[in-house]
């Protein structure tokens, strides 16, 4: 049942991401709903299922973008895996911790995309103004994740309580 609801949510989010969100640009970037979803599923379930949800999100993202399929799958699967690995090591059941986790995973993803596709310099820690977007995107993701995680928490906790870590 949880997987079924997850798939419905995934479908809704991908449709919103590729149609509605383009018109909702904040600071000229849009929130990455599928990353938010993937991190949530990883943090809620475990690293193994987070990894599979990550693969699905990667396929979804690449379907509606010109991004390379293999790269998208690799990055999203890694994100789900990392989020899932934190289960049991942190108080990841709380929404706040999930949002903080999302911030760091988004930052990692931004760096990966930036280095591989945007040809940014690896010296991004030198506060180059061109690299400001690296922090903007995780910030926007976190802002959108708070209400989304609240709704998802309500839906999924009703379906099944948290798995014991």
């Amino acid at each position, binding site marked *: 049942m949880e997987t079924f609801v997850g798939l419905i949510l995934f479908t809704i989010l991908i449709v919103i991401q590729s149609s509605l969100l*383009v018109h909702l640009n904040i600071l000229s970037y849009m929130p990455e709903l599928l990353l938010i979803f993937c991190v949530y599923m990883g943090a809620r379930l475990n690293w193994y299922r987070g990894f599979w949800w990550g693969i699905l999100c990667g396929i979804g993202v690449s379907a509606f973008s010109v991004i390379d399929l293999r790269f998208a799958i690799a990055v999203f699967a890694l994100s789900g895996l990392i989020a899932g690995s934190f289960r049991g090591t942190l108080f990841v059941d709380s929404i706040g911790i999930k949002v903080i986790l999302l911030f760091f995973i988004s930052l990692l993803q931004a760096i990966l995309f930036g280095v591989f596709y945007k040809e940014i310099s690896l010296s991004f820690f030198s506060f180059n103004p061109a690299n400001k977007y690296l922090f903007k995107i995780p910030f926007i993701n976190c802002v959108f994740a708070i209400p989304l995680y609240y709704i998802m928490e309500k839906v999924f906790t009703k379906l099944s309580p948290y798995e014991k870590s």
Partner: protein
Amino acid sequence: MYERGSKKRLFFFLIILIIILTVLPSKWKHAFRMKIVSIFSPAMHSVNKTTIRTKDNLSAWFHSGDVKRENKKLKIRIQSIEADLVTLEENKLENQRLRQLLQLKESIPEYQFIAAKVIGRDATNWYKSITIDKGLNNGIHRGDPVVSYGGVIGSVFECGNYQSKILLLNDNNSRVGVIVQRTRDIGVVEGQSNSLLVLNYIPRNSEIKPGDILISSGLGSIYPKGIVVGEIVKVFEEKYKLYKFAEVKPAVDFGKLEEVLIINWHDHNDKEMQLDNKEEVVKVSK
């Protein structure tokens, strides 16, 4: 005795009144009559109003069922008319856009165009692309240039049977060779994933300035020559660099794309190559 006297007085008074009224000129008679009407008119008015209102209320009470039904019908009708109005407005706007596209199509008659609708946008922050509702089955090929009534939009990146993905000009990976229309300098416009583009490789001695229009140069065989790319907003010149560079405002608002035209460049190039080959064959045979 008293009663008989008073009756006589009343009788005489009436006779005198009748005589006076008969003798009075008609102008005075009208004035008199109107005076009487004016005295009674407020009362008449209010009585009349009350009567009408009562009649209406009674009628409404008797026909309340009909009124409710009619009200419901009218509400539905208003809703449908409002929906029609929205559709009409949308059609009007679409018509305007299509007319502009048609103008562009007519201004470049040497190419074949395929019109397509935008059905999706890029799902990531890293790329700038759109998905359209035409693909290989409609004659679209990878690399075909895509334009709108404003100017260049980008090129076809990936083709399915019925859908294609267009890499927009403001994507980091997009490049287009351009000519500055006024000075005829040649440069390359590159996307930088935001609302402005960058014009590179302009010689230092060039006299480009803000407001100059950039058109596609046709070099590189991706875009045909002469399509508007954008307008220079700001020119930068650094001391130790070989070239000038400039910020360019694209001719198209990439966020508001709804319909696009794909230039059937692939078929056009094939035909031209076939023609060249024929000419060569003719020359050789001669």
